[in-house]
C-alpha cells in the first residue's frame, strides 16, 4: 500500500504544481475568472454540487462502461474475423478506418430517429469512437504470433482452431488489452460527444450534458468541476484496466519491467 502511494506521488506533485500555477495566474489577474475559474472556485463548486455531479457521473459512467463493453466485444470480434478472412480484411478494414472520420453530429439525427432519446444512441456513438484501436491492436497482435510456434503446433496435429486457442489468442491478448486501454481513454471523451450530440430527455443526463448546460448558463466553476470528475474517471478506468491486464496476461509483466 505504501509503495502504491509512493508511485502516485509524482502525479500528485505535478497536479499540485499545475494547480498552484493556475491559481496564481488567475489571482494575479491574468484572466477573467468567468472565463477560467481558479482551482479554489472549482473545488468549491465540486463540494457544493456533489450530489448533482455524482448523479450525472453515474449516468456517464454507465454509458462509458456499456459503450466500451460493446466496443471491446465488437472490436475484438471484428479483429479476429479479419485475421481469419483476408477477404473480410480487404473489404472491411478501409471502412473501419474511414468510420473514424465520420463526425458524430452527422449521424446523430438518424441514430435518435432509430433509437430515441435513451441510452442506445449514446452507446453506439461511444462504441464507434472506441472500437477502432481494439480492432487494430487485435489484428496486429494476432498476426505477430511467432510463425515457428504455429509450425510446432502443426507438428502436434493442432487444428486451425486449436492453433488459435493455444497460441494466437493468448499471444494477441496483451496487444488487445493495450487497445482496450486506448479505447478507454477516448471512451470518456466519447461519452461527452455522445451526450452533447444526441438529444436527451430530462435536464440532467450525464456530465457531458451538464457541462454544455453550464457552459451556456455561464456556470464556469461547475463546468470545470464536472470536467475534473471526467478527468479523474478516465485515470481510474485506465489503471483499473492495467491491473486487469496483469491478472489476464501475467506473462507480459516481467519483474521490474513495469513501465506504466
Amino acid at each position, binding site marked *: 500500500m505504501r509503495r502504491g502511494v509512493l508511485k502516485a506521488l509524482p502525479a500528485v506533485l505535478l497536479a499540485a504544481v499545475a494547480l498552484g500555477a493556475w491559481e496564481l495566474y488567475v489571482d494575479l489577474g491574468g484572466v477573467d475568472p468567468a472565463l477560467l475559474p481558479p482551482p479554489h472556485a472549482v473545488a468549491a463548486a465540486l463540494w457544493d454540487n456533489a450530489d448533482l455531479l455524482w448523479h450525472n457521473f453515474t449516468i456517464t459512467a454507465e454509458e462509458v462502461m456499456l459503450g466500451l463493453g460493446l466496443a471491446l466485444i465488437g472490436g475484438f470480434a471484428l479483429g479476429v474475423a479479419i485475421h481469419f478472412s483476408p477477404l473480410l480484411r480487404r473489404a472491411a478494414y478501409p471502412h473501419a478506418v474511414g468510420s473514424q472520420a465520420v463526425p458524430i453530429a452527422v449521424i446523430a439525427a438518424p441514430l435518435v430517429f432509430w433509437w430515441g432519446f435513451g441510452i442506445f444512441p449514446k452507446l453506439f456513438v461511444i462504441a464507434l469512437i472506441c472500437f477502432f484501436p481494439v480492432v487494430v491492436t487485435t489484428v496486429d497482435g494476432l498476426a505477430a504470433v511467432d510463425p*515457428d510456434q504455429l509450425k510446432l503446433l502443426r507438428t502436434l496435429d493442432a487444428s486451425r482452431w486449436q492453433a488459435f486457442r493455444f497460441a494466437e489468442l493468448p499471444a494477441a491478448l496483451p496487444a488487445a488489452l493495450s487497445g482496450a486501454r486506448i479505447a478507454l481513454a477516448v471512451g470518456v471523451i466519447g461519452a461527452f460527444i455522445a451526450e452533447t450530440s444526441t438529444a436527451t430527455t430530462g435536464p440532467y443526463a450525464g456530465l457531458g450534458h451538464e457541462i454544455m448546460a453550464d457552459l451556456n448558463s455561464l456556470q464556469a466553476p461547475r463546468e470545470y468541476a464536472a470536467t475534473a470528475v471526467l478527468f479523474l474517471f478516465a485515470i481510474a478506468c485506465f489503471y483499473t484496466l492495467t491491473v486487469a491486464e496483469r491478472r489476464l496476461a501475467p506473462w507480459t509483466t516481467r519483474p521490474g519491467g513495469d513501465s506504466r
Partner: protein
Amino acid sequence: MGAVSLSGVSRTYAQERATGQTRTRRGTGTTGNPERAVRALADVSLHADRGEVLAVVGPSGCGKTTLLELICGLQSPDAGTVRSEPAALMPQRDLLLPWLSAVDNAALALRIAKRPRAQARERASALFAELGLAGFEEAHPHKLSGGMRQRVAFVRTLLSGKPVLCLDEPFGALDAITRAEMQGWLARALAREPRTVVLVTHDVEEAVLLADRVAVLCARPGRVVAELEIALPRPRARTDPAVVALRERALIALGLGGDS
C-alpha cells in the same frame, strides 16, 4: 523396414534480399533467377530403423533444419521421396508457450488430442519427476533455466506419442556444462523409452555419444559425405578412445581433421 527413409531428396529455396535481411521463401526457382536460388539439400538419402538414433552433423547451412521439416511433413521435397512414420519436432528454440505453466506446456500434445486437462497434466507430471523437473510443474517458462526449458520441450515432444522424434540441435543454446548434463540425461531417457530419433547437431562429440549412426553432411548444397556406425555400448564416456577415434573420423569427413 525403416521408420524414416529419404531417397534422392533435393530442396531448393528462392532467396530474396530485402532491406539488408536475407529471407528465404518457398519456391522452386519460379522467380526465374537461378543464381538467387539456394539449394538446401541435394540428392540426400538417409534412413533410420525403428528404435535407432540417427545423428546428422554438419556445418551451419547444410540444410539440417530443412531435413527435419521434411521428415515432419512441414515441407515437401522438390525431388526424391521422403517416407516417415509420424514424427514430432523438438525445435532448436524451445518455443514453450509463455502463458502456460511448465506442465501444461509439456501436456500440450495431449490437450490437442482432446484428452481431459487433469489427465494430460497427470501424465506430464509423471515424466517431470523422472526428468528432474519435480517441483517446477506450475512454473511459467520465463522462470525456468535454459536446461529445464529444453527438458520441458522434450517431454512435450515425447508426449506427442509419435514414433519418431526429430530433435533440432536440442542443446545448442546451452552452456558446455549444462549441455554435458543434458546429453547424459537424454541418453538415459531414450534407454528408458526407446524411440526412433533423428538428432540434428553441429556437435560431433554429441553425435558420437548419443547415436547409433552418424550421417555427416556438407554445406551448400547439403549432401551426405559420410556415414559412421557407432557400435559402442552405452553409456559412453567422451574420454573412451573408441569415442575419440570416431569423433576424429567424423571431423575428417567434415574436412576438419584434428592435428593431421
